[in-house]
């Protein structure tokens, strides 16, 4: 059994997020920063700027073709949401490897994560959360700990995937069996290293139970529900193909409508296909 400390030590070797993201985060801590300053930082990374514009103009955000510059994107979506999109793109690029372990492919992993991001935001919107800026990114990052295992404990992760195949169990249980802890714990540590905001960090840490403290509970519950829905709808592949039960406390506490899934199905699939294509291209 590997201990957590040795993996934590390895996490130190994880590349930091791209300059554009760290510059952006630093700039945002400065109360005197202007939108022009931020626009300059984002525009310095052309590939990221183009993808951000593609995403904000997709059906998912609903600004079809109306946002043609980064400064407009900031104006319509807010600085935090744009920063979060840059974060999503940065992390996907960081781990978009072609390497496959058994039947676990990063592209399928990201498709699952993108689906969870989309459903999380749709859940948030349906329960009328006022500030949705962290919803998409929390879904995208919820399983990030799996990629740390994947990247830094390859041999043991093959044991995890073999265990899943043989025992037909959830990947988190196989991880606990092999490592003694699962990807939610590891994801939490990565968030600490990357200084990810607390609400997103809680969603990563508690997405299996769907329950957290009152201040972040809506987001945590939304990610929990979205994770299970993405599994049920077979969107992407999270490392096992099982569908656990949603925690009743999670959907009751956020008062999710009983017909949420049937009402949002078409939109969900359309948004998933479009966003998946943009982010993974």
């Amino acid at each position, binding site marked *: 059994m590997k201990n957590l400390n040795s993996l934590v030590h390895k996490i130190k070797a994880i590349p930091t997020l791209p300059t554009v993201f760290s510059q952006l985060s630093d700039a945002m801590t400065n109360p005197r920063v202007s939108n022009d300053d931020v626009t300059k930082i984002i525009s310095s990374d052309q590939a990221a700027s183009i993808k951000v514009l593609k995403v904000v103009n997709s059906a998912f955000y609903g600004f079809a073709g109306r946002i043609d510059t980064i400064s407009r994107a900031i104006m319509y979506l807010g600085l935090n949401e744009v920063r979060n999109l840059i974060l999503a793109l940065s992390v996907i690029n960081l781990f978009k490897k072609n390497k496959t372990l058994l039947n676990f492919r990063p592209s399928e992993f990201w498709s699952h994560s993108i689906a969870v991001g989309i459903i999380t935001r749709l859940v948030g919107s349906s329960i009328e959360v006022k500030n949705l800026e962290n919803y998409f990114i929390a879904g995208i990052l919820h399983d990030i700990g799996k990629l740390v295992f994947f990247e830094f404990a390859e041999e043991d992760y093959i044991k995890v995937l073999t265990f899943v195949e043989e025992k037909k169990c959830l990947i988190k249980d196989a991880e606990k069996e092999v490592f003694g802890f699962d990807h939610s714990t590891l994801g939490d540590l990565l968030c600490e290293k990357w200084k990810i905001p607390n609400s997103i960090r809680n969603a990563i840490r508690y997405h299996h139970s769907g329950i957290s403290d009152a201040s972040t509970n809506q987001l945590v519950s939304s990610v929990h529900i979205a994770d*299970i*829905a993405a*599994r*049920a*709808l*077979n969107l992407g592949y999270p490392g096992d*193909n*099982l*569908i*656990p*039960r*949603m925690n*009743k406390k999670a*959907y009751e506490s956020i008062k*999710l409508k*009983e*017909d*949420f*899934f*049937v009402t949002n*199905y078409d939109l969900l699939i359309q948004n998933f296909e479009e966003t998946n294509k943009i982010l993974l291209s």
Partner: protein
Amino acid sequence: MSSLINVEEVKPGMVLAAPIMNRYGQILLNSGIELMPKHSRLFKTWGIKVITIKNESSENDIIENNDLRNEAKIKFENRLLWQPETPIEHNLYEVSLNKAVKDLISKFSHEKSE
């Protein structure tokens, strides 16, 4: 696919594949309409002898789709660690099962066309 049939052969539930027009080209009944017993009477009144109806799926297609539906259900339920109890669980179950069926049918038709 559609076929031309005598109005005497019309059965309720058949779907009109082309609009029925009078001699002046005015549309009396639009295509896509599901025919009911009253339509047979109307055809007689209008002096219509033949109409075009959409072909139903062949019996084989229906059996094949039913088999696929059952197969999709079994596969889906094997992945499911619970049985639906609350309304929202029923909602997720139905939507997901329908998608599983659609995915399998489209995979099957794709394989068939290759």
